[in-house]
């Protein structure tokens, strides 16, 4: 028995038969998240969900995959954001459990309202998913600096958005995605020490030179 099958069973466990059918049709995406979760745990055991039901995890995984989508480069799904968030809701984000409990059914109601043939966000096409998310959040960056510490998100979408960003960009050597996919995307090298030159603009820099006539006021 391969461990992949074990994980599949794990995800199917507890799902209704309809969900089980749905899960089986969406298996490749889930497999990807599960594989990375396994790598992050550095173990062949099935990834463990502590907060979400497998059914909820499928929805959250689909949501994170629209917040930081997969294209030519990996996104939140490959970084196993759903597992990070699951763990977060039992640890540093325990206060946000209620936001998720209430937010997920609201989201699913919105899905049904927008596309009556659908009940699950994860069952929609990416274009449909984006349309649903725009109805929750159509804001743009304000360019405001460092709201991370001060601003506590209230809405479900904003909470999930922040958690997805954390899952993707937290230092891979200090609790983040151990694969460091987010850091790779943004060009943040994983080394702990750096030496100049650091980038393009300092590589030919000759060093600081005083202007003519500048005096040294040091008296020694």
């Amino acid at each position, binding site marked *: 028995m391969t461990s992949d099958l074990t994980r599949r069973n794990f995800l199917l466990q507890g799902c209704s038969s309809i969900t089980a059918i749905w899960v089986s049709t969406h298996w490749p995406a889930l497999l990807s998240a599960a594989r990375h979760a396994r790598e992050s745990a550095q173990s062949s055991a099935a990834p463990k969900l502590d907060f979400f039901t497998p059914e909820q995890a499928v929805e959250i995984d689909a949501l994170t995959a629209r917040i930081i989508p997969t294209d030519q480069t990996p996104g939140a799904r490959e970084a196993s954001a759903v597992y990070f968030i699951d763990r977060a809701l039992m640890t540093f984000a325990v206060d946000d459990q209620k936001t998720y409990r209430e937010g997920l059914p609201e989201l699913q109601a919105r899905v049904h309202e927008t596309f009556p043939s659908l009940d699950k966000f994860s069952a929609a096409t990416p274009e449909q998913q984006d349309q649903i998310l725009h109805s929750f959040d159509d804001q743009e960056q304000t360019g405001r600096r460092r709201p*991370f510490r001060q601003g506590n998100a209230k809405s479900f979408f904003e909470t999930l958005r922040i958690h997805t960003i954390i899952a*993707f960009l937290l230092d891979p050597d200090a609790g983040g995605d151990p694969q460091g996919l987010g850091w790779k*995307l943004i060009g943040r090298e994983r080394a702990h020490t*750096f030496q100049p030159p*650091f980038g393009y603009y300092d590589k030919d820099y000759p060093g600081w030179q005083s202007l003519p006539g500048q005096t040294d006021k040091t008296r020694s």
Partner: protein
Amino acid sequence: MMPDQPKYKTSDEVDFVIVGSGAAGGILAKELSTNGFRVVVLEQGPYLTEADFTHNEVKVFNQDLLTNHPKLQPTSVRKTPDEKASPKRALVYGRMVGGTSVHFTANFWRFHEIDFIERSKIGPIAGTTFADWPITYADLEPYYTKVDWEIGVSGLAGSSPFDPPRSKPYPMPPLPTKCSGVIFEQAARKLGWHPFPAPMAILSQARPGRSACINCGFCLGFGCEVGAKSSSLATAIRAAEKTGRCEIRPNSYVHRIELDANGRATGAVYFDEQRNVHLQKAKAVIVSANGAETPRLLLLSANKQFPDGLANSSGLVGKNLMFNSAAISLAVFDHPLNDYKGFAVSRVFHDFYELDPQKVGFYGGGGLDARFDATPVSFAMGGLPPGTPRWGKGFKDALAHNFTRTMEIFCHGTSLPVETNSFSLDPDLKDAWGLPALRLTYKDHPDDLKLAHWLNDRALELLEAAGAQKKWSQPIEEQQFGVHLLGTCRMGNDPKTSVINSDHRTHDVKNLFLCDGSSLVTSGRGQPTMTIEALAFRAADRITAMAKRGDLA
């Protein structure tokens, strides 16, 4: 882990109890214990060391690993005294042994001569309590030099034509020049300004037990894992412990200064970690708890003799708060700067340190620095230009393109002292120990906001001259949140208009001293820590002399 230290009994009347172990408290502990006195430092936060520090942004920012915690220590905020304050985070300060010096940027300018005598030069300003200091730059210069050499500041003497005189060069060369520094220097010179290598309290050369900066990139907000940042923890506290006369007592939350019938301080009352209450007896008490917690402690210590708070005959305890005005512009460049590598700031200029009010139409002045201080999660939250999508492909593409290509220009400026700007006790809100919470009342003087706009326009000019691909500014708004906590127990010769004298002794209680950001009379142009530390070295000299001639009894 805490190094070996003496353990004094609370009933043992030590020479000094110091409340707070940060920039000022750490240096006072070192100096006084080195001078032969028995010292107990009561620190409300934990004793963390390099091994406890982490690059985990959630732990550091969201969970306040190193800082005051809004759940344990809620605060309230309002703009004017006639409003009811609403619960909101008002401030961030370091809450651990070493205090704010552990997690700060380590920008380390000295104040200039003008900062101490500007009221005389400019004249009165309506709506303010603008005043001269009772000491001058010349009085403080030897102590600035002491900070440079003993605590460890890197920089290049004589590199700014606007620098005040110094008696000695820096003990070590400046840190490397980051790409943001190169861009800033070239553009500023194009505009006829005078950029210079930033003086930083970060080692460019190793010292015993401390590494030179390794440019790890987790600096602002984080504790330094290699001891390169010249925090009190990495410097003064260690030196104090080596004397064998100083006990650092962490997790000790002081909430009252005890007085005897003669109005003399007898010690500090605190909660230990289990919330048992103790009185540490001492011959003299020094409060260095920061510009918010120092006045709060005096207000919490009100008694029959001092119904309005200890040492508050002037009524000015907690008042005249100054945050420093600030503005930030950001820019994206064509090629990678990789400015995430290294400490925050490598170039500064002071051409606008002293603006002529007749010419610009407002009072003020400041300095601009080139920096990048955002770690990856914080960058994704607030480092992208306005108009960028907050999620989806557009968001992802912007992160991928901008993180290595972004830099900031931070404008730091004066705040005028306004009496109603203050920290006081909230009448309703309580902290986790049941004590009245801090209430912030703050509305920037109009000149502070005009200055922020004026300096920010220079930042945008510079970014234009530098050929930025895209540039934008943070909105400049009235401040309702502070990290520089200045002026709330100001120094002065007149007991009616100040709380402490130039020796940091309170006018009202002979053996009670205050030394931290609260002592400042003016705000400088940002970067107050260097001046707070110089004041602490000077206060230690003054207090030592008083104690030796029996003037504390």
